[in-house]
Each structure stands twice: as structure tokens, then as C-alpha cells.
């Protein structure tokens, strides 16, 4: 995570009370390869892996001031923490009614998009596999898509194929998406915050196969290891292959069911 890098680390240490919880068993959680603390890491784009990680900024009464879905660059994280501080000032302003605070909070969320520097916006493009997922699953209803006609071009593309020019611009950037979604749910108590809907973009799986990359090139060097790595989170059941006999299928079902009950972290191949 980006929390170890300055300026994020100092801000967390000095300005905030920090806490966390494991959401592995939550229905809205995604899944990814298991990474040990001494495993490799790869810097990624803002908003990547929204199902696997959410960073809330809460007022001391538990009101959600802001929520960052997925991973964020440390500078951008600090910028959003500073914004949450402004939201906190509004929430604590005793001269405003709750209705006024919510209206003001929504406006501030939308306005903050315009304050994002170009570099932050450039860091906030959705991952290609998430764009493809949105274009495939809900091209005309997704709030992530600006131009469905262009976005759907991604659906027929093979893995690893370079997207046609301009395809990326058919999608909103995650910094904009985040503030638009927050504007729709201003100042909610943490317990009422609909995390599942808020983080619902892209595919549930997020993984960069960090531990299977060559440190010199950054490229995946062990395809087989990546394919069979242990996964954490809400790992979907492996689909049944066609063409097997009834008896074999029943045995397979029984074994899979037992394995799921007994083993928390299961093996699961790549898409």
C-alpha cells in the first residue's frame, strides 16, 4: 500500500487516528493473489482494486466524510485527506442545518474534481481489465462510461491487445467517479454507507502477479506460478468443465464443497 510513503506516512502518524478491519468475508469483497509481507509489490493506478481496499475518512462521530476506493498514490491520498478535513469543518459547523451541510457537502465533492492536478488525473485511469468488464457487463448503464459506443470496442479485444486510440477517454477517471459517487451520499453514518454499491466498478479480481515477476524487467516470468497461486477474499467457485461423466462431476462437487468448508484460502486459476 502507499501508506508507507511520504507525505502520507507523516500525515497518518500526526494528523489522524488510524484503524483497519479485514473485509475478506464481506460479500462485496473482491479477491486477489495472497501476498506475504515480504512479497514483491507494484505501484498501480488510483482507484485500482476497489473491492479489495477502501480508505474511509470519518468524523469523530462516525460520519463518513470521504471514502477512497482501491489504491491511491500517496500525494493524492494526502490531497483527499486535506479535502476530508474541509468536509469535517462543514459537518462540525453548528450554524448549518443537516440539510444545508449535505447540500454543501455534495457541491464540495463535485467541485473538488476541478482541483485535481493533471498528474493526479493521469494516475486515475481505470485498469484496462476493469474498463473491459464495465463495457462488457453494463455498457449503457454504468456510471463509469462516458461514451458507450467507443467503450464496447474493448469487449472483443484479446488479452494483452492494445486498446484503440481514444478508448481510455470513453471512461471516467476514478478520481472523478469517486467524487461523483460521494456527492450522491453526503455525510452518511459509517454503518449506513453502502460500500457494495460505492465500490461497484470493474471486476472483482485484482492482481498484478507481483511475486511472479522478474525483478529486472518487471514482467511476469512464472506464468504457471501465477496461474496457480493462492487467493484471498471472496474467491468464486471454479466453474464445472463440460464433457465429464456424471460420476466424476459428483465426486468433483463433493471434493470442492469439502475443500471450501475446510480451507479458507483456495487455489484458483487466472482468467
Amino acid at each position, binding site marked *: 500500500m502507499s501508506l508507507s510513503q511520504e507525505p502520507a506516512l507523516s500525515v497518518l502518524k500526526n*494528523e489522524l*487516528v488510524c484503524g*483497519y478491519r479485514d473485509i475478506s468475508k464481506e460479500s462485496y469483497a473482491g479477491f*486477489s493473489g495472497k501476498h506475504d509481507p515480504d512479497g514483491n509489490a507494484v505501484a498501480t493506478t488510483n482507484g485500482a482494486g476497489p473491492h479489495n481496499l477502501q*480508505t474511509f*475518512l470519518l468524523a469523530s462521530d462516525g460520519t463518513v466524510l470521504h471514502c477512497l476506493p482501491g489504491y491511491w498514490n500517496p500525494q493524492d491520498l494526502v490531497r483527499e485527506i*486535506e479535502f476530508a478535513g474541509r468536509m469535517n469543518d462543514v459537518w462540525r459547523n453548528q450554524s448549518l442545518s443537516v440539510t444545508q451541510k449535505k447540500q454543501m457537502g455534495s457541491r464540495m465533492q463535485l467541485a473538488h474534481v476541478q482541483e485535481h492536478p493533471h498528474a493526479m488525473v493521469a494516475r486515475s485511469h481505470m485498469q484496462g481489465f476493469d474498463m473491459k468488464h464495465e463495457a462488457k457487463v453494463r455498457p449503457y448503464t454504468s456510471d463509469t462510461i462516458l461514451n458507450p459506443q467507443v467503450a464496447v470496442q474493448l469487449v472483443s479485444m484479446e488479452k494483452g491487445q492494445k486498446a484503440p486510440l481514444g478508448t481510455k477517454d470513453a471512461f471516467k477517471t476514478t478520481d472523478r467517479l469517486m467524487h461523483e459517487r460521494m456527492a450522491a451520499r453526503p455525510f452518511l453514518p459509517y454503518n449506513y454507507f453502502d460500500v457494495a454499491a460505492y465500490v461497484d466498478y470493474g471486476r472483482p479480481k485484482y492482481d498484478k502477479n507481483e511475486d511472479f515477476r522478474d525483478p529486472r524487467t*518487471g514482467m511476469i516470468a512464472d506464468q504457471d506460478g501465477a496461474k496457480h497461486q493462492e487467493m*484471498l477474499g471472496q474467491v468464486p467457485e471454479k466453474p464445472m468443465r463440460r464433457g465429464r461423466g456424471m460420476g466424476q462431476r459428483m465426486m468433483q462437487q463433493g471434493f470442492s464443497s469439502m475443500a471450501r468448508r475446510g480451507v479458507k484460502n483456495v487455489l484458483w486459476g487466472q482468467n
Partner: protein
Amino acid sequence: MVKKSLALALAIASTISMASADAKTARFLEGNVAKENIDRVNSSIRWNTSLYQALDQARREDKMVLWVQMIGQMSGST
């Protein structure tokens, strides 16, 4: 709160020069470096695992709470 906002603003300002890094560059961190980073986070920051306690501390210290929801453990596998 103003003092805190100023500190945050200064923190942002101090990193503007870093912000020009190529967004497309996927920076690869080897395991030993990644572990150092994780150790730094866990030794520098006290992570509450109870939201109730975190909010109580925030009230006493007049701070906001940064509450991370993640798959895995802060000091273990993720």
C-alpha cells in the same frame, strides 16, 4: 483544525515536484523493500482494530479517523 489543514497543505505542496512522475510507469518493489515499507507503517502508526475505540480516541484528540477496509491483515498477508 486550521493548523491541521495547513500541515496537510504543506505536505501536499512539498510533493508537487514529485507529481510529474510518469503515471504509466509501473514501479516494481522487490520483497525486501516492500517489507521495509510495511514495517515502517506498522512501527510508525498504531492501528486500531476497533472502530469504537478509534472514534473515541479521535474525539479525545480532536482528529479525524482514517479507517482502512482491506482483504488481509495490516501486518500479515494481504
